[in-house]
């Protein structure tokens, strides 16, 4: 059975070019870049090349890129590092729909006395910017708002948000883990101070991430105990994965047009096809401001886990925000924050595509999924006869 992978917001296939680029750094060039000998020291230039590849994808200067172990570490470094640097009087503003890496970090700091405002979203998953202005009126803060939502693909107007934040004399962090490589990003034009990204969401391996830190942004290191990364992160550099992330970013730049055209067209084909083939299906989020690869459906009257298991039997991989899959007893915090009624919240299915998907993949889903939905509704006491 063919594996039809439509769960690219969870993780992505490592690009073959990326594997090829990083392998020599396991086998031949395995030295420590800090060493005072040629065998190790020669790796420095590969680190710096990777740094410039990452910087180029988001319009940064290479010196503004800090390598981390993952998106979660980037978020933790940005938020805890900036709050620590701000000292007394630090404040936090975030939203109810952030990834747990941001939300839990902010709530942790709140428990330690840092005032926190969690902005609400509307039914389309969008912020009320007046609420942001109001929260900023109380004084400068670290504002952490995601570029694009992992579950719904909803894109926040980061440029407009950053202008408001900067005008208030505050610091702007954005978790861009889901958007880097999928939509064009220019940190200079967008006035962002801190930006988190993750390797495995853009066809690099798991275990590598980066944090953009605009020159002049005050931030304390999270990991102490080493001079690496200009003293901003202790720990010997993960050279093979850093090289991999650099290569993946270079590929992402080259493929950006494909992401926003061919991948978006496949997503639209899937969306339109399922809306046509299944009654009582809704799209969650903001179709006008959304990642090109993501669609989040609610299949009414049935539950997400059972849909995922039936799809998995057909080789189709997707994900759900239902209670049974979120590891708790309640639907995902994103879906609940949007005020989606329970009838729709328990039956959410997210498809997220990548450049490795084909029209055949989408057509297989359009063929296999509608009978699954109909069958599960036959079992459900809530479905109309």
């Amino acid at each position, binding site marked *: 059975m063919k594996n039809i992978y439509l769960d690219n917001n969870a993780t992505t296939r490592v690009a073959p070019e990326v594997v090829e680029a990083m392998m020599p750094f396991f086998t031949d060039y395995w030295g420590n870049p800090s060493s005072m000998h040629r065998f190790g020291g020669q790796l420095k230039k590969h680190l710096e090349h990777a740094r410039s590849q990452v910087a180029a994808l988001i319009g940064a200067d290479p010196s503004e890129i800090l390598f981390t172990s993952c998106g979660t570490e980037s978020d933790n470094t940005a938020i805890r590092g900036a709050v620590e640097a701000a000292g007394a009087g630090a404040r936090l503003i975030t939203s109810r729909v952030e990834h747990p890496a941001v939300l839990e970090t902010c709530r942790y700091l709140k428990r330690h006395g840092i005032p926190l405002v969690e902005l609400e979203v509307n039914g389309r998953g969008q912020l009320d910017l007046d609420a942001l202005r109001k929260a900023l009126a109380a004084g400068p803060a670290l504002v952490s708002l995601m570029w694009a939502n992992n579950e719904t693909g909803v894109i926040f107007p980061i440029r407009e948000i950053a202008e408001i934040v900067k005008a208030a004399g505050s610091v702007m962090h954005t978790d861009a883990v889901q958007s880097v490589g999928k939509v064009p990003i220019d940190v200079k034009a967008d006035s962002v101070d801190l930006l988190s990204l993750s390797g495995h969401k853009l066809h690099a391996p798991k275990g590598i991430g980066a944090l953009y830190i605009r020159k002049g942004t005050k931030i304390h290191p999270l990991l102490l105990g080493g001079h690496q990364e200009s003293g901003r992160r202790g720990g010997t550099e993960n050279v093979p994965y850093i090289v991999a992330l650099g290569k993946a970013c270079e590929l992402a730049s080259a493929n950006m047009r494909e992401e926003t055209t061919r991948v978006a067209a496949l997503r639209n084909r899937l969306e339109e096809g399922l809306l046509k083939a299944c009654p009582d299906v809704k799209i969650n989020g903001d179709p006008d401001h959304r990642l090109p690869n993501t669609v989040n459906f609610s299949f009414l009257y049935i539950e997400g886990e059972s849909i995922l298991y039936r799809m998995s039997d057909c080789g189709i991989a997707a994900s759900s925000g*239902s209670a049974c899959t979120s590891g708790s007893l309640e639907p995902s915090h994103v879906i609940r924050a949007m005020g989606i009624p329970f009838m729709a919240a328990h039956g959410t299915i997210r498809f997220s595509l990548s450049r490795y998907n084909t029209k055949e993949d989408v057509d297989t889903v359009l063929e296999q999924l509608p009978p699954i939905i109909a069958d599960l509704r036959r079992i459900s006491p809530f479905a109309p006869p």
Partner: protein
Amino acid sequence: MWDYTDKVLDHFRHPRNVGVIPDADGVGEVGSMACGDALKLTFKLDTRGRIADARFQTFGCASAIASSSALTEMIKGMPLDKAEKVTNQDIADYLGGLPEQKMHCSVLGREALELAIRNHRTGRKAEKKLEGRVVCRCFGVTENEIEQVVRDNKLATVEQVTNYCKAGGGCGNCHPEIEQIIARVRGASPQEPPAPAPVPPMTNIRRIRLIEETLEREIRPALQKDGGDIELIDVNGNRVIVALRGMCSNCQGAHFTLKDVVESKLREFVTPDLVVEANPS
């Protein structure tokens, strides 16, 4: 993915006895859309009083569907007095076990069976009665239900109770109370909650005002978050007549909302004898 047994996956992929028996001798409905799982069980008896046929409809995850399917297979051919002794552990055993966090699916089956048998005996549509105090407000679970799962399954921790009946799986405010119940059932030093202060008789005016205040403070904000609302229509003795508005008015979980949320809040904050009814508009 969950570590489901082959038997769970088989019953999930090929559920037995799906449907509703139109002239059923017993009907049991438990759960709701809000809870994330629900089961409707119907059965038909033969002339000797044995369960000749049983059918189900389930809204829920793979293990909820499998547990329901298993239950119908298990009880077919059983006399009622034997069927009513089926425990949630029997259902889980039949399936070769369920993941600990999915045990509540087997409890759902046992509860539906219990209600269906009660419906057959009384001839009345049996509700999942709120027997005893509601301990977990997030999922509407009573003291009696928690006691039963603790007793039947020899549970020892709050986490286990959550896995078996969902109690404690929301805000977590009831965890200390669940701990007390576990201690009591397991025969450890029972810590009785403080006796409620005697309630002075209440005037009608005071009662209505308290009901309004409670609706405003405890109930309306939660409903409005889901796009719904509630309106107080009338108070007649201990009967409180309300109307659900907005998203709530056509929500299939409306009955759950009225009884398990509105009624239990009003009983807590006003008087314990109140009965909430929907406005028959």
